[in-house]
């Protein structure tokens, strides 16, 4: 199958930014809003802006959660970006009564609640920060370096113990990138991280 990346489109997400990056990289892509859009998709990207509860609600309303699960279970490659990564876990304190996709057991927490005696830590975590590569076969997908982040909630490092490929420090160490089999999560925005970010998108999309 020729690689064809499906970009999940929900009302509050920045799907267009991801699409433009894929167009620029000349990677075949299609927007997915409904069940019928899932045709010949080899890869899925779940972009991430908005709020946890709303994204899950939108995916449910659009009737596409089952199809995403199906493709994931078939071994197609899935990338969650920022909120897209967060919802792949069980829960987030952002919308504590909403369940995530449950592919992983992590729960997302808020940087605001880290002990912050010297007031130097600002929330949201917005700007460029260093992603330190964790040595693993998958870590070649994300080269260490600075990437662009914009979020208040994070995945605690200890909750992705064996699948972490990138760690970043903001008051504490959190998981900035992970990969398990066909599923990858990035807390930063590769579509906004200039050349380094585009490289990650390219490598993700080229997986076979």
């Amino acid at each position: 199958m020729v690689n064809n990346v499906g970009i999940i489109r929900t009302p509050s997400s920045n799907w267009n930014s991801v699409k433009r990056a894929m167009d620029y990289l000349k990677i075949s892509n299609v927007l997915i809003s409904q069940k019928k859009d899932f045709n010949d998709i080899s890869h899925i990207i779940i972009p991430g802006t908005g709020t946890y509860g709303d994204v899950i609600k939108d995916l449910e309303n659009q009737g596409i959660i089952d199809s995403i699960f199906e493709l994931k279970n078939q071994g197609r490659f899935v990338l969650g970006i920022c909120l897209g990564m967060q919802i792949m876990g069980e829960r987030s304190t952002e919308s504590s009564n909403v369940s995530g996709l449950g592919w992983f057991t992590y729960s997302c927490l808020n940087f605001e609640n880290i002990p912050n005696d010297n007031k130097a830590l600002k929330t949201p975590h917005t700007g460029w920060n260093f992603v330190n590569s964790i040595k693993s076969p998958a870590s070649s997908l994300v080269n260490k370096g600075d990437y662009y982040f914009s979020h208040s909630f994070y995945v605690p490092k200890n909750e992705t113990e064996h699948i972490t490929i990138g760690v970043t420090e903001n008051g504490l160490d959190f998981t900035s990138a992970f990969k398990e089999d066909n599923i990858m999560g990035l807390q930063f925005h590769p579509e906004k991280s200039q050349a380094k970010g585009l490289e990650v998108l390219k490598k993700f999309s080229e997986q076979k």
Partner: protein
Amino acid sequence: MIKKRIIPKILLDSMSNGSIAAGMTSSYDNFIPIGSPISQAKILQDNLCDEIFVCKRNDKISLDLCYELIEEMAAEIFSPISFGGNIQTIEEISNLVTCGIEQVVIGRAATTEGDLIRKASNKFGNQFIIYSIDYRKTPDGRFRLDHTSELFDTKNLMKLILAVIKLGAGQLLLCNMDRDGSTIGPDLELLKILNSTVSVPIIIGTGIRTVSDFIDAYKTGADAVAAGSFFCKKDTSPLQLRSHIWNEGIDIRH
């Protein structure tokens, strides 16, 4: 830790032939065009900008034209882009997200359009909203916000800012209007007070003339510095600027 940011500003105004030009101002007036916004953005990205601020100066340019411009920009610029310019409604904000904006800058509407910040923050997250405090200082040390006649003392200004943060503003943009394009540097006094009051990122928005102004702003607590005329004047290359800042012990991409 997260790095300090340099944010070049692209100010937009309409030209007599109907086109949109990028340029610079002083005291929010005396617009001098310097070129095409898209070309400017490309040059800035090539020179490692951390973000780009696109600001519509006035209502002579329609938002529809701006949507087109931003779409065009976002097709080639893979850096965070923030946009501001009298944004008043949630529909405008939604359109801007679709076009490819990373953050919206909201000024007067934060206090005149009741629910706008809360609605926008609930929908897109507070990391999406920058509250722009555009002000002038009176001789007796009080603050007049743009588009209001009300005067604030420091305590009441802080109360207002904290209230807007509570509504959902995730960053603050501090713009002393008298220091725009100025020769007197940024307002470090207010920055210091603000930095000890809030725990959201603060961006200095006006008054940057020299490399030292960047350094002083970061050392006083600014998380980011936005500059317009500094980059238009091109006395220091952006990469030289970063080296200077880095050499002062400030963590910045370089």
